[in-house]
């Protein structure tokens, strides 16, 4: 068996987030009469995002992570990428993780696309010593032409996506996380970037791919995990996994 690049052991992520509720002085008065202790500030509402999750991702795995909106797929990816610290449990990563979430983000809207590309290269690839060539390669790939020297704030969302994706798709990684990265690109650029992403996926050690597009998943992935309410409900082959996921409809629509 190949080497595990990502190991999640009994992983839990719980956020104590205060949930905003509409209130009135009358409600506070009535609640205080009923229970004076309710005035004491609470520690916040408990939002369990990931619950006792165990998962191993091996070299060569192209793992599709599917689930309905809001079940915690992105939070799980952010845990693996090091954004969130787990509440309990362990994450072991072997190698470098590169995670791509929403890439249509301008770092400095006043600066030109070209200048933003230079900055993005520093943020995304700090390990690269000479970045000139890779930046030129990405700028050419983006096909933004003269717009590269126009302030980023004047770009449309599609143009921002082109620049962001062109930069983000420059280097493979030991563990590559792609979270709905194609959103925002036009049809023609989408085909072009999809081809580039396929190369990126081929050259990376393990890939975690979050998508709602079954065709994209079938094309890219060789393993599928169905994630629901913080837990893994299915882990196996892609076709079977997609059938299982479709079967969740009654559960989700309850």
């Amino acid at each position, binding site marked *: 068996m190949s*080497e595990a*690049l990502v190991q999640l052991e009994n992983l839990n*992520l719980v*956020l*104590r*987030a205060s949930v905003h509720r509409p209130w009135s002085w009358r409600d506070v008065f009535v609640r205080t009469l009923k229970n004076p202790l309710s005035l004491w500030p609470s520690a916040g509402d408990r939002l369990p995002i990931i619950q006792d999750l165990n998962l191993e991702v091996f*070299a060569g795995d192209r793992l599709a992570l599917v689930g309905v909106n809001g079940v915690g797929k992105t939070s799980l990816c*952010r*845990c693996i*990428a*090091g*954004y*969130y*610290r*787990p*509440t*309990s*449990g*362990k*994450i*072991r*990563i*072997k*190698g*470098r*993780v*590169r*995670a791509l*979430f*929403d*890439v249509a*983000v301008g*770092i*400095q*809207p*006043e*600066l030109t696309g070209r*200048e933003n590309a*230079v*900055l*993005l290269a*520093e*943020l*995304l690839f*700090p*390990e690269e010593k000479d970045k000139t060539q890779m930046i030129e390669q990405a700028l050419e790939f983006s096909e933004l032409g003269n717009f590269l020297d126009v302030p980023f704030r004047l770009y449309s969302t599609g143009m921002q996506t082109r620049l962001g994706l062109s930069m983000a798709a420059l280097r*493979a990684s*030991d563990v590559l996380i792609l979270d709905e990265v194609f959103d925002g690109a036009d049809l023609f650029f989408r085909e072009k970037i999809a081809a580039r992403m396929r190369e990126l996926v081929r*050259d*990376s*050690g393990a890939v975690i791919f979050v998508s709602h597009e079954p065709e994209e998943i079938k094309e890219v992935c060789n393993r599928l995990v169905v994630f629901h309410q913080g837990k893994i409900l299915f882990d196996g082959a892609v076709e079977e996994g997609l059938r299982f996921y479709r079967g969740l409809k009654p559960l989700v629509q309850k």
Partner: protein
Amino acid sequence: MALVASSLVRRTPGDALSGFNATYFWRQVHAVTVANLKSRYRKTVAGFLWVVLNPVISFGVQGLVFGRFLKIGVDDYLLFLVSGLIPWIFLSQTMEMCTPVFAVSGPLMKSFSVSPLVYLSAQVLDNIINFIAAFALVLTALAIYYGYTGGPVFLVVLPFLAICWGAFGISWLLATLQVFFRDTRFLIRFVVQIGFFLTPVFYPPEFIPEAFRWFVDVNPLFYLISPFQILIHDYHGGLFWQALLKAFFVSFLINVFASWVWRRCRNLVYFYV
């Protein structure tokens, strides 16, 4: 693809620095600072001059009002003023500019796996550059015009390091709080305005009546400014080292507290931004 065994990263609830690489961090801070500076001075005629003009004009006006009009009884008043006012402007501007950093960098923080401290450090560094430029300019001009009578000028590096460290800690704390309490930014503006009068910046601490001295004793900003005042205006070796030690200690405490708050709130910061 070759995998290096040393690149094994473990993340558990407590660890804060797993996978941290100081060289990469510095490269990213440098890049963001350069971009911030470029962005700010684009399409301005005076460019960087604006940054220096603000403290220089403030210094000139306050020197005139407090030194000539109100005649505050302090020898070499302009030297005293520069040693307190320019560090104060640095602290207040850093606090005001850094408080919204996490809140406004939300989309970036969520898109790219870059430490949020990169954006914060870049903003602090931006202010440090402004501070050095303004301080060097005004101090040199005063030294040429009046003559320099303070302590060894090379020692200024030490209070400078202490104030930068302290400013980073305060900014870290405020930027974290701003994510949860959006009124932090307004409160800081208000505190800075009041703090200017309650901190011995344009008057010496001896002017404060005994009954109100505790204002100074509990004011962390004064501990960061005081070594500058002793070194440049009223140099006394023993007092300077004592004040410097206090400044580093205060900076240490602020950073420990900011780091503790950050570790507790880090996940929620990502959740809310």
